[in-house]
């Protein structure tokens, strides 16, 4: 069954239209944020009923005022740093807990490991609203209120379960011969894991790193309630707290913060995307 040139052109057109549609859907809010970032307020606050006023373009000269507010009058760079700092620590803790647990569940616990792994995964489902109150108490009991450490303590509750489960699948996918041959050569099990299994698991670990980092960046409820000093906040909370002042939204600065935060993260994700895909596929289905 040969396809005519016409139908091939048609197929290409349809394909491009689909791609374009999705790109527009994904990017439109960012475009809108970017425009808002540089618009003067008097250009911004024109009702949408005014069809003569095109909101997509600059009707008045662009301004850097909103960026000036974001960088000059808020602690935005500090919040970025805090987010990254918490992210790195939480990811490390997640790896320290989830990698051994994942391996253990995959190889060393036999039948009940399966059940246990599902139990662990299910704890990921417990809604944060339920845990909110007990956590407040725990954080205070440990004297961690209003410190970034409170978040470091709490955040692994939503990264560890899922990542353990993912890594378990990943380890299952590795042939058992990997460790066994090393053990025949006189390695202990632990040595075999360290020398043979871990190097092979880099894609899986990378997946977990990106995944955990995403969840940390997205979180805002705990961060909102456990951190009260502006200089210790994360981006998700600091930006709205500083720039939504009750009945005044600093739209330009808010949008700027969102876009400036997102772009570098998106770049990093893109770099590792293929490996992430590989790791996730293996980890998730096995």
């Amino acid at each position, binding site marked *: 069954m040969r396809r005519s040139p016409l139908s091939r052109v048609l197929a290409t057109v349809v394909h491009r239209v689909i791609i374009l549609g999705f790109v527009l859907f994904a990017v439109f809010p960012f475009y809108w944020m970017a425009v808002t970032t540089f618009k003067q307020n008097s250009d911004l606050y024109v009702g949408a009923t005014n069809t003569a006023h095109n909101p997509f373009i600059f009707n008045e000269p662009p301004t850097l005022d909103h960026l000036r507010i974001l960088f000059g009058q808020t602690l935005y760079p500090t919040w970025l740093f805090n987010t990254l700092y918490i992210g790195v620590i939480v990811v490390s803790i997640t790896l320290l807990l989830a990698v051994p647990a994942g391996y253990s569940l995959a190889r060393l616990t036999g039948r009940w490991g399966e059940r246990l792994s599902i139990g662990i995964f299910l704890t990921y489902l417990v809604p944060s609203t339920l845990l909110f109150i007990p956590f407040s108490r725990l954080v205070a009991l440990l004297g961690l209120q209003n410190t970034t450490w409170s978040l470091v303590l709490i955040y692994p509750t939503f990264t560890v379960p899922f990542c353990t489960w993912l890594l378990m699948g990943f380890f299952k996918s590795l042939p058992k011969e990997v460790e066994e041959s090393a053990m025949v050569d006189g390695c202990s*099990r632990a040595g075999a894991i360290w020398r043979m299994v871990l190097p092979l698991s880099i894609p899986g670990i990378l997946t977990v790193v990106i995944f955990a980092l995403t969840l940390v960046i997205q979180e805002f409820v705990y961060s909102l309630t456990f951190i009260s000093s502006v200089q210790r906040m994360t981006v*998700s909370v600091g930006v709205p707290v500083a720039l939504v002042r009750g009945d005044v939204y600093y739209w330009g600065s808010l949008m700027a913060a969102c876009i400036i935060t997102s772009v570098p993260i998106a770049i990093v994700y893109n770099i590792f*995307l293929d490996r992430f895909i590989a790791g996730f596929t293996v980890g998730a289905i096995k």
Partner: protein
Amino acid sequence: MTSTKAKPLEGLRRSDRTLGMVMLAPALTYITLLVALPFLLALFLSLTNSSAGSLDFSFVGLENFRNVIGNPVFRRSLRNTFVFTLVSQVSVIVLGNILARALMKKFRGKTVARFLILMPWAAPISLATLGWLWIFDSTFSVINWLLKVIGVLGPGQWYYWLGDPTLAMVAIITVHVWRMLPFSTVILLAGLTSIPAEVHEAADIDGAGPIAKAFQVTLPMMLPILTVALLFGVVFTFTDMSVVYLLTRGGPFNSTHVLASLAFQDGVLGGDVGRGAAVAIFLLPVLLVLAVVMLRSSRRAEVQ
């Protein structure tokens, strides 16, 4: 697969078992202390009249549950939770499939397209939703401006994205799909990539049309990864309150609440912790159903 030491699982060496316990212990301890115990405390609070989370309370038995079930706002939010989860996840899976297939082909600018499509995944939701809030704003909505200019909205016509219960639900689902789509697409892309080219060729030789091919070849092979994508999406969506809380705060007139956001409003904003916990507990039956699905799907993966 047989190796020299292949024995039944019970035959794990004792040292391996010990190592297994040691390796599992930290994660297990952490989860028990920080999820399981707090969870039990929360269940316990749902039977009390604790205000603002103080541990100074008295028991009220099932009164919280009785009040909650009788409350129309709760019943609405229960329904919304299912609508929200179902519609957004079906959309994500369908759109994700289309997009993943489109991205399988080679074309110019693919890297850029991929980067742009991935952007929503990188945006912190509390900030991204503010962007959407601005887009859906009743006075300044750029969508309405556009519709007006191209003539879809006549004089005096207007869409109140966050003011109409139905449109507000549409807006919430749109934002959620927007943020979930990149991730699901990536997962599905992984699934598609893992199907060997020979499978397609064999199907072509058998004379299968594109639709038959999709349903008889691709779909069955994609099933495990599809299950994972769906499961993850459902889990994530079902307990998520961020989009609702940030976009509509449950409005208009408490008509767009989902269980998680209602629990937050009653329990934390309203200070009635017992009631909030009671609302959130209604998520549990679904949690159990998901557990069964998981057990089954993981067994199937093992059989394969």
